[in-house]
């Protein structure tokens, strides 16, 4: 028997969700819809009575204060039965569109509903499916309805439109049972063309050299590989898992002093990023580039770990699910660091095309940036908030070139007891998979993200898209830390890209393992042995457990209803042996799997774009220009996004993402205090600027490091205790110009990190961020994200960016140069320029150290770093965030430029600069501390509503009310 139940808000209750959907419809320019109501639909498959259904409606599914319900019974043939409530009265001139998840897509509500029914004693229930019915009032044409359905209500990758409610179909579509059939791939006799075909057809993304090496291996064994073996190799050798571009050889052509030069780089990672960390050699680095996350010392009991990941490809196709599982994945990285860390805060950085991009400029097969942004933000919001991890810091960068490939960086920080950092698998330890069940979701995620996206991606790769279940992960977190503290396991890692294949493969690298695949708990029947092995279903962890502890271990997990299952053991045979129902489906030597990959040489070249001297037109009204820069999407307020994230859960927030008298100004770094009974804190910040990279990736890298570090200095941090992470998102590295710019950026990382003595502790790369449509390829601008983490000794000494008191003195610390290249100022003129900001780490170090000292001594009331928009934007933000006016002059500021122009001084984005507010009582002491660094007195904070700047000639060059400036800054993304 099927019961279809509809739940609807009573007429007098405001439908907030419907109103939100209506706003999205209006955003599409469709005015023929006057209102939207959302009806929740449940279909229950179970032998339950009408009275039980009524109870379920009354006590579980509908809230009688605000909702009504209607139900109808169907038999298994799909015919409607007599037993129905009176249906809802139909709304006149309304359309209804019903959407449901595709079979196999995870919907946690179904599981909760079954639990809720059981609590009410309503059993047996075999299955529950949910759907949403949208009732649209108005006179829309069928074409308009089609647009609304596809652009607002539905993502066809994971959902479908329910044409006619037919419960039997709702369930019948679940995947059918398949009989076991061991498949061999005809490899050993294959010629070149067939090898290529096997790789392409199997979505293996292996090149010919690699296929040949694999062929050789199996020829020696005198047998063909099983599909499972081939997949395992493809996963392990994928760009995503192996990072073969960074670890391979690169023939790099470049120019030096006008001469063409070539050099071969062996292992880009080791010769730049890693080398910097080794040379800097900080004693507080506990574990770098070794585990899931970098680990540094925190206090006498604990260390902190930090990891940032990307989830770009999935977010392009299904923004909500992509971002959702992106954050879920990086949180699992932290859970799988050492013997497991406790997540304490998250950071998120996104790159999108501008939200006002005309629909006609959208390449076929891509989603509109506004929809991507909405989906990504909700995905991060729902995962982070539901896990109870504050999202404390982030950034959003807009550029047209992200239209086919948005970037979604998700980061997480964890706290781990000092004695839980090392893990070691022992022969005989059992392999346990814990957490979510395994389904067909995310098949081929690792290999899929190692290729370019095309118009066809949404069809081919639909399996790579998933939706997360944060509550499952929270349950895992809760029991995991209990089991960790009881010392019940010896090692742990997360199931991410590549699924069990990657997790077990990695843990068993030294020893070898045997797994019985039929023991893996499944979401539904019908998965093949290979699908079980490579599925990327979320919320799973793999652990190694000594047999003597296994019962205790399983009990801890069972006590809070978290599934944990023994699926095999670590053997000591140095082989990866997989079985399914007793038959061997994989037998590979670990040595070949992990070290067999042929070392490739890729071509790279870098040519400096020609330095054309740019005539920058003189701007008559600089105040108007300032408002224009404040309104630029990259500068304007992101409050509508920030407020959707819980940035305060766990109670540790000290500097929140928004600061100021009305808590709406843009903070620099965020600071959290992970232990509420201690004053020690952690500062987190990000540096990103792809516009600089369009001119020179070397100086982009340098600027990103400078920005991330100076934001921590700006809140009162200490540069002796800052570590950084790199995250490279680039185009196709098989194209020499893309790879050349990547090399150049990596070199910038090395030089600057060593210059500032800030070590890299972890990193990640996501390559192949290109969107191909026909013959045209859109590559993202090479984008480097530098994330920084700093230890704060006493959080009560932290400083925020808002002006505090009228009468205080304003200084600019650091030098301004003629460096408008890549600036937002030029962006408003649709120019990019060439004089990209550079970094002088020797001078920068002196500035950072002096300013930290001044902050620690309590001589400063506010500090704000100058980044996008330069001095003008920083000064305006400090003023309107503090609700205080400014009278400032430019003529005393350190300024190096052949052409002395107010606009260059105000809007250049030179590095290592701050604006600082100092109480007149501390003026002398402050200046004494700064005696060895460039600074200039700029003016005073005033108890007015006015923002006034006198130019180099002593005349007023900018005058505006605070309210106008703030409105320009707040309005673009008010939401």
């Amino acid at each position: 028997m099927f019961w279809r139940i509809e739940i609807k808000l009573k007429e007098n209750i405001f439908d907030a969700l419907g109103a939100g959907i209506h706003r999205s419809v209006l955003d599409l320019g469709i005015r023929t819809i006057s209102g939207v109501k959302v009806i929740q639909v449940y279909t229950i498959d179970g032998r339950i009575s009408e009275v039980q259904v009524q109870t379920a409606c009354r006590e579980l599914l509908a809230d009688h204060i605000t909702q009504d319900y209607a139900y109808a019974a169907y038999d298994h043939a799909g015919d409607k039965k007599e037993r129905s409530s009176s249906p809802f009265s139909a709304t006149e001139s309304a359309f209804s569109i019903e959407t449901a998840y595709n079979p196999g897509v995870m919907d946690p509500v179904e599981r909760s509903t079954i639990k809720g029914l059981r609590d009410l004693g309503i059993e047996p229930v075999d299955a529950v499916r949910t759907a949403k019915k949208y009732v649209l009032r108005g006179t829309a044409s069928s074409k308009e309805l089609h647009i609304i359905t596809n652009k607002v209500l539905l993502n066809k990758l994971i959902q479908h439109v329910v044409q006619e409610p037919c419960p039997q179909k709702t369930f019948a579509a679940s995947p059918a049972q398949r009989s076991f059939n061991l498949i061999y791939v005809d490899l050993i006799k294959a010629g070149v063309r067939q090898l290529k075909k096997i790789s392409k057809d199997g979505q293996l993304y292996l090149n010919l050299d690699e296929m040949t090496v694999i062929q050789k291996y199996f020829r020696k064994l005198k047998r063909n590989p099983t599909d499972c073996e081939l997949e395992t190799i493809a996963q392990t050798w994928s760009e995503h898992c192996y990072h073969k571009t960074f670890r391979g050889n690169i023939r790099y052509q470049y120019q030096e002093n006008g001469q063409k030069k070539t050099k071969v780089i062996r292992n880009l990672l080791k010769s730049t990023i890693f080398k910097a960390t080794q040379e800097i050699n900080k004693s507080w680095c506990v574990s770098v580039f070794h585990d899931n996350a970098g680990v540094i010392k925190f206090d006498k009991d604990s260390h902190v770990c930090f990891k940032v990941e990307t989830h770009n490809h999935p977010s392009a196709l299904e923004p909500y699910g992509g971002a959702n599982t992106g954050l879920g994945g990086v949180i699992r990285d932290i859970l799988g660091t050492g013997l497991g860390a406790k997540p304490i805060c998250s950071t998120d950085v996104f790159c999108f095309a501008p939200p006002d991009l005309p629909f006609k400029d959208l390449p076929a097969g891509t989603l509109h940036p506004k929809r991507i942004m909405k989906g990504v933000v909700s995905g991060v919001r729902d995962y982070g908030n539901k896990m109870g991890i504050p999202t404390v810091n982030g950034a959003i960068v807009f550029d047209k070139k992200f239209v086919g490939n948005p970037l979604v960086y998700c980061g997480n920080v964890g706290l781990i007891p000092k004695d839980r950092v090392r893990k070691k698998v022992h022969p005989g330890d059992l392999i346990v998979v814990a957490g979510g069940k395994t389904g067909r979701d995310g098949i081929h995620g690792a290999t899929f993200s190692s290729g370019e996206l095309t118009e066809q991606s949404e069809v081919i790769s639909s399996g790579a898209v998933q939706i997360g279940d944060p509550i499952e992960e929270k349950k895992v977190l809760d029991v995991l830390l209990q089991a960790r503290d009881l010392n019940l396991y010896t090692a742990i890692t997360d199931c991410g890209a590549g699924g069990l294949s990657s997790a077990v493969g990695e843990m068993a690298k030294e020893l070898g393992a045997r797994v019985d695949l039929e023991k893996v708990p499944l979401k539904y029947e019908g998965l093949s042995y290979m699908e079980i092995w490579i599925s990327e279903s979320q919320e799973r962890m793999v652990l190694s457990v000594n047999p003597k502890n296994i019962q205790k271990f399983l009990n801890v997990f069972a006590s809070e209803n978290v599934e944990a299952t023994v699926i095999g053991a670590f053997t000591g045979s140095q082989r990866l042996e997989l079985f399914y129902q007793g038959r061997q489906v994989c037998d590979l030597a670990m040595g070949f799997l992990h070290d067999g990959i042929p070392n490739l040489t890729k071509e790279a070249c870098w040519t400096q774009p020609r330095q054309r001297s740019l005539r920058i037109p003189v701007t008559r009204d600089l105040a108007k220009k300032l408002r224009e820069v404040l309104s630029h999407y990259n500068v304007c307020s992101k409050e509508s996004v920030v407020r959707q994230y819980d940035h305060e859960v766990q109670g540790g927030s000290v500097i929140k993402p928004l600061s100021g008298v009305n808590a709406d100004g843009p903070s620099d770094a965020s600071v959290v205090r992970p232990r509420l009974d201690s004053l020690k804190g952690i500062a987190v910040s990000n540096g990103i600027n792809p516009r600089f990279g369009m001119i020179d990736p070397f100086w982009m890298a340098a600027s990103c490091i400078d920005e991330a570090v100076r934001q921590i200095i700006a809140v009162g941090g200490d540069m002796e205790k800052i570590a950084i992470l790199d995250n490279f998102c680039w185009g196709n590295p098989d194209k020499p110009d893309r790879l050349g710019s990547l090399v150049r950026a990596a070199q910038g990382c090395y030089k600057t990190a060593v210059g500032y003595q800030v070590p890299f502790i972890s990193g990640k790369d996501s390559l192949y961020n290109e969107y191909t449509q026909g013959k045209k390829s859109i590559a993202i601008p090479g984008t480097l994200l530098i994330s920084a983490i700093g230890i704060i000794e006493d959080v009560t000494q932290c400083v925020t960016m808002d002006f505090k008191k009228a009468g205080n003195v304003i200084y600019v610390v650091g030098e301004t140069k003629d460096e408008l290249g890549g600036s937002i100022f030029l962006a408003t003129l649709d120019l990019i320029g060439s004089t990209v900001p550079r970094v002088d780490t020797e001078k920068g170090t002196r500035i950072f150290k002096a300013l930290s000292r001044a902050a620690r001594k309590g001589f400063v009331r506010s500090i704000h770093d100058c980044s996008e928009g330069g001095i003008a934007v920083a000064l305006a933000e400090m003023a309107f965030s503090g609700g205080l006016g400014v009278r400032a002059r430019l003529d005393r500021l350190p300024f190096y430029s052949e052409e002395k122009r107010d606009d260059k001084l105000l809007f250049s984005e030179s590095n290592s600069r701050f604006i600082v507010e100092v109480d007149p009582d501390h003026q002398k002491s402050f200046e004494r501390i700064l005696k060895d660094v460039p600074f200039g007195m700029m003016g005073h904070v005033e108890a007015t509503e006015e923002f006034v700047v006198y130019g180099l000639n002593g005349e007023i060059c900018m005058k505006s009310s605070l309210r106008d400036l703030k409105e320009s800054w707040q309005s673009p993304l008010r939401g």
Partner: protein
Amino acid sequence: MNEQVKVIILRTAGTNCNEETAFAFRSCGAWVDQVHIHKLFNSSVHLKEYHILAIPGGFTYGDDIESGRILANELRLRLGGDIRQFIEDGKLMIGICNGFQVLVKAGLLPGPFSEEERHPSTFSQRATLVNNDSGHYEDRWVYLKVDGKSVWTRGIERMIYIPVAHGEGKFVPRDQDVLAQLQGNGQVAFRYCGPNGEKPEFPQNPNGSVDDIAGITDKTGRILGLMPHPERHFVFTQHPSWTRLDKKQHLGDGAKIFENGVQYVRKNILKTALIPRLLAAGTGKGQ
């Protein structure tokens, strides 16, 4: 041990503000256990051992179907007797954010209005919390005006400033009669207001709650539920603009609520001497 105020913080799948709520009670001198609901189900822990039941914020069971609904049903159907006894014994309860949603949906708030309604056969739900008018989750700070005569709000005369962080916080009473009872009985504990105590506009009332209601109590005032998070303004560095304030003030506006609960138990249940003003939490001394 007998002399100590004992707090049970109830935990289940999706609970997430338990640690900071525990910190708040502990800083007020209470003994705190964070207990998974399964332990109450299988009787390895007994509710009657405690004086205060706190249901913290979070997303229990993912807020699937409706916020707080599944946990509310568990309390009602599986722990109903124990909970009724707990209330009869004159003990205290507090539900914060998701905990408030749970108490309302379980019918524990606003609870019975008259003696006849005290009949134990059902808990009846008379109000609910629905989607914010904005349609989405929001984290922001709000001013609250204190009303009523709950033991939890004693001595709070001025307004308090604490954050909300929720998507389903719009308070809706069943009808005018329920609203009138709440007002008449002094069961409205907190209302959203403007920075000077004036009638709020959005976002000062962040969700569109009827009569600007942010928190209510039962008729005895011993059970408190509220959407805003007092445990998130327990120490001064949690204030969103503490860098503008006098640093000598160590405690946040929410602290008094926890202190009131603990002091009430000490005075009325344990009948021990009051301890002086609570420890200087957040000064690094801990406890």
